[in-house]
């Protein structure tokens, strides 16, 4: 009885593939290209016509003159072809040692005393490894270091932080956060 059903089954797979696997995604692509061309094409950021990244995808920044993103487990860090989390468990000793090291490094970089609690987003890896954002508290603690390295007034840098801070949509959907690439691009324009 199963064998008699296999012919219609195979035909059904093919017809439904054409419908949901070809016509449907092409329809979505067509509408998306007309209605939201930039967003459909990865929200790319261009400087002088050249692609420097995506507004949605985090990038690695090191050095005192930049705001630093969160630690990343994507490849060697912010590898957009290898998204992913660390998957380290909450009681894993290796994870706890890593966090201790990151706390010490964050305090040293930003000239913070041993009693200053470090924002959790600054010492933990995100789920995607491509998190484009940091918390406002994290950005505020990094601002004096960036200002010193760039010979800018702290108020100027904090102003840029404020301008690149996004509240949750409708006031409650998501978290308040600072867009690191946007902020660093703004810093570069100041110079």
């Amino acid at each position: 009885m199963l064998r008699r059903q296999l012919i219609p089954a195979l035909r059904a797979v093919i017809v439904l593939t054409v419908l949901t696997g070809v016509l449907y995604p092409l329809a979505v692509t067509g509408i998306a290209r007309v209605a939201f061309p930039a967003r459909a094409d990865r929200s790319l950021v261009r400087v002088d016509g050249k692609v420097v990244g995506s507004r949605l995808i985090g990038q690695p920044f090191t050095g005192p003159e930049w705001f630093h993103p969160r630690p990343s487990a994507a490849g060697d860090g912010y590898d957009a072809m290898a998204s992913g989390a660390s998957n380290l468990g909450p009681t894993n000793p290796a994870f706890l040692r890593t966090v201790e090291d990151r706390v010490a490094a964050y305090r040293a970089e930003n000239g913070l005393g041993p009693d200053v609690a470090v924002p959790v987003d600054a010492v933990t890896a995100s789920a995607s490894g491509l998190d484009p954002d940091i918390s406002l508290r994290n950005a505020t603690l990094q601002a004096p270091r960036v200002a010193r390295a760039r010979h800018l007034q702290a108020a100027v840098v904090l102003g840029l932080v404020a301008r690149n801070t996004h509240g949750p949509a409708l006031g409650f959907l998501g978290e308040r956060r600072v867009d690191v690439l946007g902020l660093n691009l703004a810093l570069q324009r100041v110079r």
Partner: protein
Amino acid sequence: MTAHAWEQLAAIVAIVAIAAPPLGFYLARVFGDGPAPGDRIFGPVERAIYRIVGVDPDHEQRWNVYAMSLLAFSVASVVVLYAMQRLQGHLPLDPTGAHSIDPALSFNTAVSFVTNTNWQNYAGESTMSIFTSMVGLAVQNFVSAAVGITVAIALVRGLTRDGARTIGNFWVDLIRATTRVLLPIALVAAIVFVSQGVIQTFAAPVHAHTITGATQVIPGGPVASQESIKMLGTNGGGYFGANSAHPFENPNGVTNLLQIVLMLLIPFALTFTFGRLAKDRRQGFVLAAAMFLIWFAAAFALTSFESAGNPRLTSRGVDQSMSVGRVGGNMEGKETRFGAAGSGLFGATSTGTSTGAVNASHDSFTAAGGAVPLVAMMLGEISPGGVGAGLYGILIFALLAVFIAGLMVGRTPEYLGKKIQAAEMKLVVLYILVTPLVILAFTALSVAFAGPRSAILNHGPHGLTEVTYAFTSAANNNGSAFGGLSTNTTWYNTTLGIAMLLGRFMLIIPVLAIAGSLARKKRVPVNAGTFPTGTPLFTGLLVGVIVIMVGLTFFPVLALGPIVERLGG
């Protein structure tokens, strides 16, 4: 939970409460006997499809023929998807140069998507071509969800028909579920996703030259069209490795809320379909209420545990407090834009609906938090469960509940006027035993051998949880993972594949058999001894039966995993 989390939770409840009933009534007309809205548009398309497939839409099937059609369709789907992956290197639309995939992984992935599990032993961006994702995996996202709907509808017909020999036509139900339900909603949701930044492009990866002089390769893909059906069909298979944590799949709080709503929509709607087809809407309400209570408890618990943070980090000088400008809680494996609230609500919904999409790393949840998605799956995916699978799952528990109530008062149990007798109860017991047996047997085998044990990333009790989670997810057709476990091995590809097959078809066949058996029975009139199943008391009994069944089965393994880890300090 913070005020902020409560607001998001309230918004989810409000949207689903508004949208699910009308959708459920629409579904009742699509799968009922009379005309349905949109016949003029969908009718000609469907008739053309029936002609090509070669089926007579007016010919109804007995349960065993219905089951055979379903199995044949699933076999054909596995074969096509397997072949597509094996031949991937020779197929078009492959801008990243993805190679053909080895037999074990191809088997696992084919089974995974056909069974609506979407367990992924690979990372999409490096392993799958656009062709395989779009023409293979995303197609199964539609049709495996449609198959779930057909089984639920067949069971409802069995419960509501009087002395009937047939339970509908599988091909008609499959195609109508796809064309009239899944495609229209997915299309609208996909466009909304693109408007928020979910990508939809066939372009090759772009090489960005960053302002610090580095290069970042940014992938493309038809993501939005897959994302909407991934959530709506409670599938959960991510286009990218990071799944719904990836900014291109889930860019902000709006898309996160929409993804949660899409997961809940059809499973809750189907309870209203049931109430309408049973001509007693209270019967649908009590099921929806039981689903809601368990979902709410899980969402509240997970969000609370994750918001409280990891106590081991506080003592190491980490600030996990939450306030304006501070993203607090346990942030390892979470995205800043979602925080603990957006991640907790998503995780509980994804594991309560058999979706298995993740917007946070479940492996990095706190010990107590990680137990929540695990238990949500162990409950048998009924809070509110997968598309179709949630309704037939909770109806099976309802049969068990009336049976237990019948035992207590010493009467033959009835449900919707159908006598529940030995034949049905044997099938119910089979349904309830298959999943725990598969989970516990494969977990025990995997930790008994050194090879499978070496796949564990986090050792100690957490490692046992990783393995338990994997088989619980596979056997319940969920698809989420404690991702630290390295499962792209011959052992796990094979055993997880078998677990998914058993957890899908060894449940569907008994359900269809019950449907056939009940359809044949004459309805008996309600009398003084009938246990009423349309009351809050029945909701309480149902929740109690579900929790006790699962508690008795899984408490030992939970004690050795998350409970020990939590008590360890």
